[in-house]
């Protein structure tokens, strides 16, 4: 059970007014708010143990290194990775995907295929397009249907021995669809393709089990799981991480450097060049511990309630259409009101204290599919309430009256 009063007390930012109204923060898909334990942990790091890691013999460096590696272990446990060196700290999901796509440049040739889906965020399209440009490989797209679900029959037809990589998201950021990735991974493996899962939108809502999923890569961002910005995680199966060349060169990622030849450090350091985001890495562990304390089972039940409640209330507004109507959805509602531009609604509800996202959500192909300029997206977190949904629905109604 979620004790909502207790949880909301953990998030100081929620207790404020914007534009003279109490803040209703429904832009959690863009970034999550931070609980006090996270904010305090950042301060504590800089006040007490700030030092560079993995290189000093002095005490502070040891303390910082220990804290950083404790966090790596916590994340390993969280995603159920087999080894802690399969957890690479990155700057975020985008960085993780680019790391993998860049690495595959050494493994692909003309005639190979890279598969993404119609539901992807630009971050899981563009790195692969760049890869295809470099290697002559072809980008293949898994189509979607009107409910915003992937067409698995078509997916199977598109699969062949030419497909070397399949990159799909766990949950669509624009529509909220939860994709059947376990099935996709299984089928992709049958043709020998590696599978990368963009877990940016899933990580705030569920606990991914990378061994059960059997994915080859799983990327997510710290800031969407109540952690700091500029830190993220790339899980990679050991065998794949050994196959891929380093992404960036520099300190920390080397074993030995001479002008003739450099040998690389072992995993995970091979992919962690330069001084990393130490505070971010440490505090991401704090954030994940916090979420696990709240409990992902509790989060799932509570967010489903919010989603059902908001869906029902919104659909009572005449002319309102929800995009993304799969039965398997995260707490995300993307919608438009007939004849009104999403920006107009977003602007008015902001003045009423409600923060939502408007636009194409970095997923233009989805907007092209529905032939719309964008949507209004409300994305709920476990610290949101039904009362906030009521305020939001009233704000949308008021905007509709003003704008039509």
């Amino acid at each position, binding site marked *: 059970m979620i004790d909502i009063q207790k949880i909301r007390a953990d998030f100081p930012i929620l207790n404020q007014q914007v*534009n003279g109204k109490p803040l209703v923060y429904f832009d959690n898909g863009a970034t999550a708010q931070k609980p006090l334990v996270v904010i305090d942990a950042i301060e504590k790091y800089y006040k007490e143990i700030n030092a560079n890691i993995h290189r000093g013999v002095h005490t502070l460096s040891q303390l910082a290194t220990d804290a950083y590696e404790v966090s790596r272990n916590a994340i390993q446990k969280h995603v159920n990775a087999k080894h802690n060196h399969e957890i690479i700290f990155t700057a975020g999901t985008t960085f993780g995907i680019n790391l993998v796509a860049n690495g595959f440049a050494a493994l692909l040739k003309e005639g190979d295929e890279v598969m993404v889906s119609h539901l992807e965020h630009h971050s899981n399209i563009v790195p692969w397009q760049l890869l295809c440009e470099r290697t002559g490989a072809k980008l293949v797209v898994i189509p979607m249907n009107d409910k915003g679900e992937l067409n698995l029959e078509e997916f199977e037809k598109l699969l062949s021995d030419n497909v070397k990589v399949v990159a799909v998201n766990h949950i669509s950021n624009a529509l909220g669809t939860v994709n059947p990735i376990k099935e996709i991974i299984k089928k992709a493996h049958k043709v020998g393709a590696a599978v990368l899962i963009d877990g940016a939108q899933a990580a705030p809502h569920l606990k991914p089990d990378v061994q059960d999923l059997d994915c080859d890569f799983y990327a997510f961002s710290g800031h969407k799981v109540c952690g700091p910005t500029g830190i993220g995680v790339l899980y990679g199966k050991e065998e794949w991480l050994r196959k891929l060349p380093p992404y960036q060169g520099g300190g920390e990622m080397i074993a030995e450097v001479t002008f003739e030849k450099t040998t690389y450090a072992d995993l995970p350091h091979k992919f962690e060049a330069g001084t990393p985001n130490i505070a971010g890495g440490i505090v991401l562990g704090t954030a994940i511990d916090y979420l696990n304390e709240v409990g992902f089972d509790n989060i799932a039940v509570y967010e489903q309630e919010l989603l059902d409640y908001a869906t029902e209330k919104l659909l009572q507004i005449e002319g309102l259409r929800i995009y993304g109507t799969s039965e398997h959805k995260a707490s995300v509602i993307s919608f438009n009101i007939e004849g009104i*531009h999403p*920006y*107009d609604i977003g*602007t*008015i509800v*902001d003045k009423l204290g409600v923060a939502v996202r408007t*636009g194409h959500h970095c997923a233009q192909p989805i907007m092209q599919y529905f032939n719309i300029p964008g949507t209004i997206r409300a994305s709920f977190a476990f610290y949101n309430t039904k009362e906030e949904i009521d305020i939001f629905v009233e704000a949308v109604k008021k905007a509709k009256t*003003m704008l039509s």
Partner: protein
Amino acid sequence: MTIQEIQEEIVDEFSMFDDWMQRYEYIIELGKSLPLIEEQYKTDNYSIKGCQSKVWVHADEQDDKIVFTADSDAILTKGIIAILIRTFSGHTPQEILDANTDFIDEIGLKEHLSPTRANGLVSMIKQIKMYALAYQAKH
């Protein structure tokens, strides 16, 4: 009326409202009075980059004066471009180029626009001045 006088008039109108809601309602009203661009000009050539909604602006010359028409798929954007067109339309290129746009701040428009919209506003003004510059160069 000179551009300066029109701007003062607009500032006056906006000063009557005490809250943002009324201002927005007025902007929406103004959007409805926008001299609409002909459909044939609603193309990429006439669209303004930097706006998150679509905006098209067209300029014509009549008796040495520039007459603007425009449209947008978002109502608030239509209102904002209507304010600009009311200010600048029917003036000579030189007058348009000489005009300052401080009145935008005075009517409190910018503070009520999100940064993306404010950037769009800057792009619209830039485009209008570009048209003026182009017509001036023609002479």
